[in-house]
Structures are given as structure tokens and as C-alpha cells.
């Protein structure tokens, strides 16, 4: 059963990993996205994330459902609120019987999340404030 969460609570990787462990799975792939200091010449100090609840959760469910129907397990957590450098913004974990699907599904979820899930970042950079990418 998938676990999807968008909240201002810190992301604990160990806790989320535990949700992916089960005897039927032989491969667990996890992606952890963190707040990066440099984007080319631009220096970031903090990032504030906001979301359109509960549409964002529903969009995540749409990503998870076909993977769960195909025999995987999906765990996604996304932070909202103000994050500092190195803080975890997003966790995507997929457990699958074999590694090929685990890699493929995990990548699909993080790539599609960045296109289809209504979450936004507001970057506080040293020169100015920037919305989005």
C-alpha cells in the first residue's frame, strides 16, 4: 500500500525506507532531493515550498496507482515550508521484485512529479527571490 505525504514535517529517510521493506521485494530504489547551494552562478540561501492541497496529493496518487497495480510499492514525501541548504525537499522510494522496475518506476515518479504535481518553490538567492526554476 502506497504512502504519500506532503507536509511541513522533516523527512526521515530511515523511517520511509522501513515502509518499503517487505519479503516480496528484492529491489528498493530511493531518490532524495535536497536544497542545493549553487545553480551556475546563482547562490541559494533557502527555498520555501508550497502546495495546492489536496490536488497535489491526488496527483501523487495517480502516479502511484499504476505502479502499485503492477506489483510495486511507492513511498513519496515532499516538504512544504522554508528549507535550509542540504535539507531534504523530496523523498521518492519504490520497492519492486527486481531492480530494473525499481529504478524505472522511481525515476518515472520523480520526473513526473516535477511536471504534474502542484508544488512550487520560492528560492531565496543571494541576489534576489526567484519563483520556480
Amino acid at each position, binding site marked *: 500500500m502506497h504512502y504519500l505525504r506532503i507536509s511541513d514535517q522533516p523527512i526521515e529517510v530511515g523511517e520511509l525506507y522501513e515502509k518499503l521493506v517487505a519479503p516480496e521485494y528484492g529491489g528498493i530504489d530511493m531518490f532524495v532531493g535536497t536544497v542545493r547551494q549553487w545553480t551556475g552562478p546563482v547562490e541559494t540561501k533557502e527555498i520555501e515550498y508550497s502546495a495546492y492541497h489536496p490536488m497535489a496529493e491526488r496527483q501523487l496518487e495517480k502516479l502511484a496507482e499504476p505502479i502499485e497495480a503492477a506489483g510495486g510499492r511507492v513511498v513519496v514525501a515532499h516538504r512544504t515550508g522554508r528549507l535550509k541548504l542540504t535539507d531534504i525537499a523530496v523523498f521518492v522510494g519504490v520497492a519492486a521484485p527486481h531492480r530494473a522496475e525499481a529504478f524505472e518506476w522511481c525515476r518515472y515518479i520523480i520526473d513526473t*512529479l*516535477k511536471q504534474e504535481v502542484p508544488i512550487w518553490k520560492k528560492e531565496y538567492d543571494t541576489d534576489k527571490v526567484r519563483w520556480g526554476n
Partner: protein
Amino acid sequence: MKISVKLFAFLGDQLGPVVTIDLPTNTTVAAIKNAITALDPLVKETVENSRLAINQEFINQSEITLNSTDEVALIPPVSGG
């Protein structure tokens, strides 16, 4: 009909979290975008790149029929992850 449109990110910063616009029941995504751009020309580019959601589902068609109970939102390009 008065329609409340939820706004987010840059659009919410510029215009507030909700704006009310006056449109016929049978309308288009373009008409909604034009009405919002008319409130502040600074949002034009972001509005053009935004997608409309009705009742928390992205809308792909250009012509829409709105009910007074619909939750309408303009979704600027997302940037989570």
C-alpha cells in the same frame, strides 16, 4: 457569473490567493486567463504558461462550462522536487 479562481506561487504573490472574475457560464480557458491578466499585466507571461484545474483536475479542452460550486484554480508551472 462571478467565479473565484485560486492562484498559487508567483500569481498568488502578485494578486493574492483568490481572485473573483465575472464570466459567462460557458466560457474558455483563454477567457479566464485574459480576465486574470487584465488585473495585472505583470502576470501575463506566467498566466500564459499556466494550466487550468477544475475541481482539482487539470483541464485539457479549451471550452468549458462552469457551475457555481466548481473549484477553479490557475496552476502556474510547477517546481516541486
